[in-house]
């Protein structure tokens, strides 16, 4: 008896029992008895198989395997397909940025150019005055990122940990800020910064209102007051994250005599690293890509890369007197590769923190 069980176990462990072997086991299990007279009858065999638990188990196992195989194929096809939809254009942009004029109209050329050229990159590089604009953009983006993290985390902390009158109303305002599309207030903001007159100080001092358009200052002012590009979302992220942190840490600090601002800076901000990373990277990426604010505040054309790239193909077709839009597009592609390269490098380096940071930073609440 013990031996049969061991044999059955071994067969199960082996995982693949041919149908014949299950038939052998049938004779040893007493509950199944095949009537002698109708030997070879198909119906009886089927009944025997139905009552055979061993066969049943094998069948279920195989069905499960089949199911998971089908699922696996489905998932792989979906993932590969969608990844292609995402990556395909990128590959096409990168490869075509190496095309020479002859490659463009050569039907034999597929992805890999026959006469690769760096001409596109050299021209795009110089017409965008890449190094200068790049340094400016990086300084602008990073400084705004620091401001965003500091201000939004402060506001988020205030919302998450303190009780004050009208808190619910104010929180509603944060949500409103996320929901209102910027374009509704673009023009009023344009007017506001054209005649910038806080507390009438500029008018009293110099006799006229300040015109801040064409400079970076409006963006810094707005970010400093927690109303910059997508600040509402950052505030929301911080609120959710601080709510999720245990109160004990700051209570301990508080009992030990730390002030409220000290607690926030030295203890809470350190503990909010996932949220800080998330907001920092979102802020860098979105600010780097932003064109609507930059266009509205009349940034000079060499101020940020996002503006520079949008005029690149026109610049090049004028300067090099190229009339074929398809060839200008090649230069544009090279420019795009130059623009997205820094972000891609940043993303590849911080990829893990990025995705996991978003997952842990309590957007989920």
């Amino acid at each position, binding site marked *: 008896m013990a031996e049969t069980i061991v044999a059955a176990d071994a067969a199960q462990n082996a995982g693949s029992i041919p149908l014949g072997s299950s038939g052998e086991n049938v004779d040893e299990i007493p509950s199944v008895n095949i009537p002698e007279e109708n030997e070879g009858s198909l119906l009886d065999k089927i009944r025997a198989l139905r009552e055979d638990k061993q066969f049943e188990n094998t069948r279920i196992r195989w069905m499960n395997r089949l199911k998971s195989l089908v699922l696996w194929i489905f*998932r792989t096809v979906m993932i590969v397909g*969608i990844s292609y*939809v*995402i*990556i*395909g*254009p*990128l590959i*096409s942009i990168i490869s*075509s940025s190496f*095309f020479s004029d002859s490659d463009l109209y*050569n*039907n*034999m050329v*597929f992805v890999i150019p026959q006469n690769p050229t760096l001409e596109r990159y050299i021209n795009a590089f110089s017409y965008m005055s890449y190094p200068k604009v790049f340094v400016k953009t990086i300084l602008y983006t990073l400084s705004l990122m620091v401001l965003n993290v500091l201000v939004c985390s*402060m*506001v988020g902390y*205030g919302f998450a940990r*303190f009780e*004050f009158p009208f*808190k619910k109303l104010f929180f509603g305002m944060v949500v409103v*800020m*996320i*929901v*209102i*599309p*910027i*374009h*509704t*207030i673009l*023009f*009023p903001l344009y007017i*506001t910064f054209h005649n910038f007159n806080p507390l009438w100080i500029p008018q009293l001092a110099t006799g006229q*209102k300040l*015109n801040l358009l064409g400079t970076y200052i409006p963006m810094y002012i707005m970010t400093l007051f*927690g*109303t910059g590009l997508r600040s509402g979302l950052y*505030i929301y992220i911080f609120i959710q994250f601080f709510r999720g942190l245990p109160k004990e840490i700051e*209570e301990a600090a*508080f009992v030990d005599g730390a002030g409220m601002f000290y607690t*926030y800076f030295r203890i809470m901000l350190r503990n909010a690293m996932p949220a800080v990373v998330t907001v920092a990277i979102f802020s860098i990426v*979105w600010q780097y*890509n*932003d064109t609507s604010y930059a266009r509205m505040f009349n940034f000079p054309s060499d101020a940020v890369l*996002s503006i520079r790239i*949008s005029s690149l193909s026109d610049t090049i077709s004028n300067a090099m007197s190229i009339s074929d839009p*398809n060839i200008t*597009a090649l230069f*544009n592609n090279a420019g*795009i590769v130059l623009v*997205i390269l820094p972000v*891609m490098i940043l*993303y*590849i380096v911080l*990829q893990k923190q990025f*995705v996991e940071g*978003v*997952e842990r930073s309590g957007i*989920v*609440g």
Partner: protein
Amino acid sequence: MAETNQKPEGQQTKASQNVKTAQAKKKGRLTLMQRRALVGFLFISPWFIGFLLFYVRSLYLAGVFSLNKISLDLAQGGYSLEFIGLDNYIYAFTKHGTFSQVLVSSVTDMLIDVPLITAFSLLIAIMLNSRFKGRTLVRAIFFLPVLLNSQAIVAAMDSASRLMAAGVGAMDAETMADLQSGAANISYYISIFKVLGLPESILDYIVSAADRLSSIVSSSGVQIVIFIAALQSISPSLYEVARIEGATTYETFWKVTLPMVSPLIITNVVYTVVDSFVVSEIVELAYYTNFTELNYGLSSAMSLVSSAVVCAVLGLICFLISRYTFYYN
């Protein structure tokens, strides 16, 4: 003293609070509760000032502009208003060539996109949540579109992805003609399905969905991550129980997964609506009217109307979804 006062207000009796206030008044100081409220307000004050200065004031100005005819006098740094009542609104709806049409099509686009993006990102999130080789790489790929959302890049990516249909490299006259006509091949498939007897409205939806695939994929990066986070926060014991009770995968999805992620469906819908609205045609139209046609009053009216419509749609959707949302706590 400090420790005892740190309890939330709910736990303190009113009498003891009164006593403490009285004590504080005697010393000429605020109670801890009041001081904390003050500090809390200090913490949010930068945002509060900014909100009043830039949002409330701008919305008010937009309202005023929409009721006036504005002539900008940039040399003197000012503008003059001439009150014309609701004329801008009336003009936008009755006389403007494209406004009503664009508004309707923008909202319809949004209504088509939102369920698709939400369902798609939930499906992808469930797929990416299970363990398999190269998961990190795939997640990184799915998050790429979020990084590449600059206008110039999006435009270039769009033309590149349309070119993909004809192969990545070569571009000849034939391909260009196909690109121009766009839906050349689609009409053939439509006719096939018409023969099969599918209702035309459903067919339209499917066709437009297939047509939008790449835009749907590229605009669901953040939603996927949010859903993955939600899926990971579901306690495994729920799945265990479901399995022990003999639930199939299908039943587990409807009875466990979906209810548990349902609070985040609202978050995602809000995010999707706002995100797709910012790049919609109606916004472009308002922007064009403002900065190219220099018709500021009309543009303000358009912006306000479209924002109001979107907020109404958003409110309606949230109301509908929240009736079916399940909150664990």
